[in-house]
């Protein structure tokens, strides 16, 4: 063993150096990364550059080489990345405040340009965030509050995307999509006035419902009375004179013969119809 080492010392060391050199000149580019090879700071090659509609497996990913010590590899993501905008207040055209959370999805399509302008992925994100903020503020500021909330949001988003995309291209990035994640009323006055409006709207609704209920009830009562009158009239119209008599009898019964009416006194004249036979007249 020792002899072997002594004999082939130079050979072994040489082999080790060759191996290390080989390993450091070969690198693997995964599907998710693009590699920019810088020679003395100048980009010379891009490995696994993004091409639209390229299927995985057909890309430039795989093993690649470089000149050790001279070439430097800068990794640039090939994936769809997100840049999140911090929640901020946006003023709509009609001077109403809205708290907006947005995100943009982007991907680097020109890694060389990206390396030259931004340098690294983190820096790129840092550059894009304020651009997104300002573009969002600008474009949303030209729209009314209602438009921000409803369907027009789609059109606004397209505009914002186009605006951001234009700026992002300077960094070799393509903006795929911008979305408003949340659009909320800011806490405090705006939120409270919204609550008040909701409460009063509900108050109005409940009052209306109550009034409608009362109206319905009145109509039902009136209809019943009308029907009753109709029924009475139908029956009593057959002989109004008899009705007069019949009803009078009922009235006397009700008025004078109640249990509590024992104290009432009736003064009868002898001429009274009731006392006709009493007088013995018998006409």
């Amino acid at each position, binding site marked *: *063993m020792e002899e072997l080492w002594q004999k082939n010392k130079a050979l072994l060391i040489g082999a080790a150096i060759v191996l290390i050199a080989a390993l450091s000149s070969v690198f693997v580019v995964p599907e998710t990364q693009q590699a920019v090879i810088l020679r003395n700071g100048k980009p010379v090659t891009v490995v696994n550059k993004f091409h639209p509609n390229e299927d995985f497996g057909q890309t430039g990913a795989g*093993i690649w080489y470089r000149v050790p010590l001279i070439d430097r590899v800068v990794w640039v993501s090939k994936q769809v990345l997100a840049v999140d905008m911090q929640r901020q207040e946006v003023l709509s055209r009609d001077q109403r405040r809205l708290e907006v959370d947005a995100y943009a999805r982007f991907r680097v399509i020109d890694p060389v340009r990206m390396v030259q302008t931004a340098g690294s992925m983190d820096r790129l994100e840092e550059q894009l965030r304020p651009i997104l903020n300002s573009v969002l503020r600008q474009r949303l500021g030209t729209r009314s509050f209602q438009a921000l909330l409803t369907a027009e949001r789609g059109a606004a988003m397209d505009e914002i995307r186009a605006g951001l995309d234009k700026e992002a291209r300077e960094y070799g990035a393509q903006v795929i999509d911008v979305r408003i994640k949340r659009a*909320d009323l800011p806490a405090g006055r705006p939120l409270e006035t919204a609550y008040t409006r909701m409460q009063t709207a509900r108050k109005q609704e409940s009052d209306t419902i109550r009034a409608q209920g009362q109206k319905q009830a009145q109509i039902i009562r009136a209809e*019943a009375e009308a029907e009753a009158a109709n029924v009475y009239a139908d029956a009593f119209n057959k002989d109004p004179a008899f009705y007069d008599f019949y009803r009078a009898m009922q009235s006397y019964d009700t008025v004078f013969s109640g249990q509590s009416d024992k104290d009432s006194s009736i003064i009868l004249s002898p001429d009274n119809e009731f006392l006709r036979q009493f007088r013995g007249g018998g006409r």
Partner: protein
Amino acid sequence: MTKKGGSITDSILAMAGKSPWGSGGGGEDADRGSGSDDAPVPEGGSKPRNPWLPGDSDDGGPRKAANIEDLFKHRQARRGGGGGGGFPRIPQAPGGKSWAPLAIIGIIALWVLMTSVHQIGPKEEGVVTTLGQYSSTMTPGLKFSAPWPIQEVEIEDVTSIRTDTIPEGEAEKLMLTGDQNLVDLSYIVRWNIKDLKLYTFQLASPDETVEEVAEAAMRASIAEVTLDDALSGSGRAQIEQNVRSRMQALLDAYRAGVAVQGVEIKKADPPTAVVDAFREVLAAQQDAQSDINRARAWAEQVTARAEGEAEAFNQVYAEYRLAPEVTRRRMYYETMERVLSQTDKTVVEADGVVPYLPLPEVRRRTTKSSSQGDE
């Protein structure tokens, strides 16, 4: 990956029970060597050694190195093998050959076995990359690949439905509706992986993307409907459908490889600050209904009484028609009987006589009758 390599080496060492390194193989390797060397010693026929005994468990590097050195010396002495226990010496197999080739072959065999045989479960798929480049997707079953680092396999559960509840917990989450009202909403998104290749490579953070897309789609859909639609059951189904198709369209545009299976609104309530006003509406509806109910009851009574009275009149009238004069008289006397039998009567006999009303008498009777009534 280096970590993986390390653990594999560890296990190989443990299994092989022999250290392929000499004692001079570096501090870290020496540590490992001593750890795994403790096991094979009894098998070698020497005294059992307790690795926790003081002296062995010392952390000092040199001491450990010395132990290993001793050990090798021991073995070599027992075998009566050649070699004076030089520092960079590899232990020798019986017959004087080196252990090294065997050990290396063992390591390689294990390496190949561990990194090229893959058990893909029934719900899983595996993405195979060859030197970083995608080459194929493995379907369930026992699958083989080239060993690491030539080929790498990443196994992921694709068919299981993943659920995201947004927001997590019971916190209030307010969204603006189209009529500028607020609704407290929470919902569940169910999704799974449609295309593992895209899911793995396309997006930097696919899981978060799904959540963000869900949030954006939900808010956009809520902003299109009125508060009443958002609160009502039928409106909800429409919103869920909208959100789902919106999400799917967005994720497809990102080529996320994700299939949205469904979106369910778990809760859609008015904000707690105004919930009383909403309850008041319910109460008003109840009140209105009870008003109407009472009116209906009264109406029933009125019409029923009218019908009853009319019917009674009709009956009497039918009788009266048969004998008008007699019936009329009879009714008159009967009524008068009932009336006069229950009241005080004063008959004033003749004209010209001033009627005398015995008022005290009347009063007395009154009190009497009222006291009777009290009893």
